């Protein structure tokens, strides 16, 4: 009788499973599979497949609308359009620190972030502040209609001016 209870608890001495242990393992295994499935299900459910977010490509208007030697912020799209002697370029106005919208300070000739005080030059290079990286240059081109187009989703590694 004691031997029977011992077998029930620990299985056969040769290491094989008895009926109860076998079913316990089947049960735990099924729970693990169901748990993993639930995790995948939850992750997929919580990730939207369709987003109603604005397009990353922005029409910044006619080049003539920007005065020479100027930096212009479009707060709705979060980009700066700068016009210099060499041509046009677009900068992301989203601070590389924590995503606040920076602003052009014409009296100081710099770009400043209102949230935590990061400062940038008009070409996006960092002057000061907690921001870890400069403001990225964004790909810019001229559309067939002669409008300046900016792709907010493609920062450029190499600086390129758009010459008109």
């Amino acid at each position, binding site marked *: 009788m004691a031997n029977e209870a011992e077998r029930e608890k620990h299985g056969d001495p040769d290491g094989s499973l008895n009926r109860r242990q076998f079913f316990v393992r089947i049960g735990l295994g099924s729970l693990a599979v169901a748990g993993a499935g639930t995790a995948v299900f939850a*992750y997929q459910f*919580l*990730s*939207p497949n369709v*987003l*109603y*977010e604005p397009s990353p490509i922005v029409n910044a208007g006619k080049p003539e609308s920007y005065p020479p030697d100027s930096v212009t912020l479009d707060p709705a799209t979060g980009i700066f359009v700068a016009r210099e002697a060499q041509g046009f370029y677009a900068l992301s106005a989203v601070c590389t*620190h*924590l*995503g*606040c919208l920076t602003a052009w300070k014409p009296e100081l000739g710099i770009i400043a972030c209102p*949230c935590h005080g990061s400062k940038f030059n008009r070409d996006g290079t960092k002057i000061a502040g907690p921001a870890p990286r400069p403001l990225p240059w964004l790909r810019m081109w001229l559309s067939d209609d002669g409008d300046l187009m900016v792709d907010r989703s493609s920062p450029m590694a190499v600086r390129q001016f758009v010459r008109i």
Partner: protein
Amino acid sequence: MAKSLTTYLDELRDSRVWRSIFRSGPGQSNLHHALVVQSNVFLHLFSVKARKRVLDFSVTWYLGALTFGAFLILVITGVLLMLYYHPAVPLAYTDMKDLQFVVSSGVFLRNLHRWSAHAMVLLVFAHMFKVFYRGAYRPPREFNWVIGVVLLLVTLFLSYTGYLLPWDQLAFWAVTVGSNIASAVPVFGHRIRFLMLGGNLVNANALLRFYVLHCMILPLTAIFFIAIHFWRIRKDGGLYAGTPTTVAEKEGEA
């Protein structure tokens, strides 16, 4: 002579309907008082008796009870605010303004909700400091301290999710900054931010997610852990009385 009020109450307590709801019936004995607590689904979380000393103001400053009081005010005012609030863009902002200027007592409820939220965060911290400096976190109460830390986090998440709901500039930028902090998590940071906001921007999806978290998921989590927190006080030997420091106290304890 007319019967006294106490007699009427005793008769009420002895009636069949009353006794079918509250099993204890009339009586003033200690056993009776104990039964009242023990046979009530809410009260049974607490001890049937406590040392007189631990009920003194100086022992706890009633900080835990005050925190729970703030939580109750927040639940009641919050449910009422939900009746006038649509978690949608741009309705959320105008609904908030309507609560301030159009809805009767709306501004009172909104301000009560806001101030109670600030008070609750303050009280949670004060409660934790009090527990810490009295040494009430020590065994056998160490697990209840852990539950308290969970409740602190739930409180902070409630504050954070509630902060977005007015959908004003302050809310928008605070959550922009907060979600970018979340994206600083190594490897999964951007996925966490995407799941949190339901997109890449703080937008309608983010507002709805924060609303569901704020009004359903986090309050239910809080209630779940508050119940355990209270029940553990009883299970861990009642409120912490502290070690007596003066002779008078030692005699009082004995």
